[in-house]
């Protein structure tokens, strides 16, 4: 079996299954813990609280004005990286094709040149973020192996994707296999580390929004 066949076959299946099992495990293990009942009279009714939860999910994408001066760089780098990644994943023709083959959904892709440009910007942002993490005193204190591993597992797909798209170094089959495997490694690690924030962010913001709306507190 060639590396590419392995990547597109058993590795793909295994990584998807591990992803599904891991995510389910992590979420259920949190949800089923013992809950405290709430008897205090809420300031707002349930519809308003649900609206508050949804609103908080959106509002936390842009921090409050009071915080901007101290976090502007972090926000811009992080936002650019995330948006860039989204553009690549959901706008790149081969990715849309993968989703189409798995689900039947499809939509128009973005031109290759646009994806190339965005990929370069995304890669640069990732490098900047890593340098920041290695130098900022707060980040040095907080960071664990998971932070660096997660960075690497996202960096490799972006890098191998760029190399594959350019077909400059190495053969197509090898580059494609490496790109697919790098994504699979990311999928396998996702449920167990900070990459899970892709899902938890909505749960956390939503829950905070609902709780704080219940109190009429600032979200």
């Amino acid at each position, binding site marked *: 079996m060639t590396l590419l066949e392995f990547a597109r076959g058993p590795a793909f*299946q295994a990584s998807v299954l591990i992803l*599904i*099992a891991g*995510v389910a495990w992590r979420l259920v293990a949190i949800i089923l813990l013992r809950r405290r009942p709430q008897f205090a009279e809420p300031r707002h009714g349930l519809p308003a609280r649900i609206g508050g939860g949804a609103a908080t999910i959106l509002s936390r994408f842009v921090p409050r004005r009071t915080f901007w001066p101290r976090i502007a760089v972090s926000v811009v780098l992080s936002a650019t990286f995330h948006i860039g990644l989204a553009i690549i994943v959901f706008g790149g023709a*081969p990715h849309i094709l*993968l989703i189409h083959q798995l689900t039947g959904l499809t939509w128009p892709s973005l031109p290759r040149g646009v994806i190339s440009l965005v990929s370069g910007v995304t890669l640069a942002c990732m490098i900047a973020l890593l340098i920041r993490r290695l130098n900022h005193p707060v980040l040095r204190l907080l960071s664990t192996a998971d932070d660096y591993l997660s960075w690497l597992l996202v960096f490799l797909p972006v890098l191998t994707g760029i190399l594959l798209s350019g077909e400059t170094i190495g053969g197509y089959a090898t580059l494609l296999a490496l790109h697919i495997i790098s994504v699979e490694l990311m999928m396998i690690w996702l449920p167990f580390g900070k990459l899970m924030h892709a899902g938890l962010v909505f749960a956390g913001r939503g829950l905070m929004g609902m709780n704080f709306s219940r109190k009429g507190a600032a979200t």
Partner: protein
Amino acid sequence: MQNADDKGNANDDETLGAMLSARGIGRRGLLKFAIAMASSLALPPGVAPLMAANLAKAKRRSVIWLSFQECTGCVETLLRSSSPTIDQVIFDFISLDYQEALMAAAGTAAEKTLHDAIAANKGEYLLAIDGSIPTKDSGVYSLTGGRSNLAMLKEIAADAKAILAIGTCAAFGGIPKAFPNPTGAVGVEDLVSGKPIVNIPGCPPVPEVLSGVLAYFISFGKLPDLDERKRPLAYFGATIHDQCYRRAFYDQGKFAHSFDDEGARQGWCLFELGCKGPTTHNACASLKWNNGTSFPIQSGHGCIGCSEPDFWDAGGFYTSLAGGSAAGWRNAGIAAAVGIAGGAATALAARNKSRPDPEDKP
């Protein structure tokens, strides 16, 4: 000049140049052939006169062709090879001493022919193989005259000068090797070591490739440069993708989404329809079939990667390279269930560590 016998075998002493002359193909014709071959082999043009000179002086090389677990498609394609003058001539440049589909003899007479050819050309004959070799159950799944192809290969390869594995079956195992490979089929290189082997894969291979390899061998007495899979670099160095005339559409992102849709009619790239061009090494995108008439992509069907090992098991002809084989909903459901069960067990074990009642001492 002595005439060739019924089989086209010339007198042993006759050179190719002399034989061709007898057919009305003079120096000029031979030179034209050499130029075409040199170009096809991606050799520098200056080499052509040397090739022509060597071909003129060469003696006919004995070729023993053994057909193992095959469909005979490789032989058929070579017979269909399209330059009636030149490629047919190639078969006059060699002495095809044994080939079961083409020879008149059968049964024990054929066996004797094989035995005699081997004895007469010991150490000098080219051994051409098409078809895979079954290895399971002592190779009982393909027998010729009661002998397994496995045993035949071992014995006959021993005295060959070089081996040509023709077609994907002989090179890499081909279709018989596809999962679950009930006969234990393998390619020649998995069974023979210590001999120069050329793989000429394809299902079937492009006929001009065989001509080129033979011409090179006869001219220079050695095999052309091979890649890491023992394929002639001249023909297998590039992928279909690299030489495809629809490459511009790939680069522009213009893809056919389904057969006979608007994009397909416009001749757009067939990547989405499963074309394996990017991962397939062969010469069909440039040489094409039937004397340069067409090739699958030009006819509107994606490349199926037939010159690559295990092409039959590479995840589906209509699944694009961007896709993989899905795990299936049933397996996904099982994975989710495992996750839910594990998470629930963890949470339940953890539950009695929390104490909602503050009076409850930890």
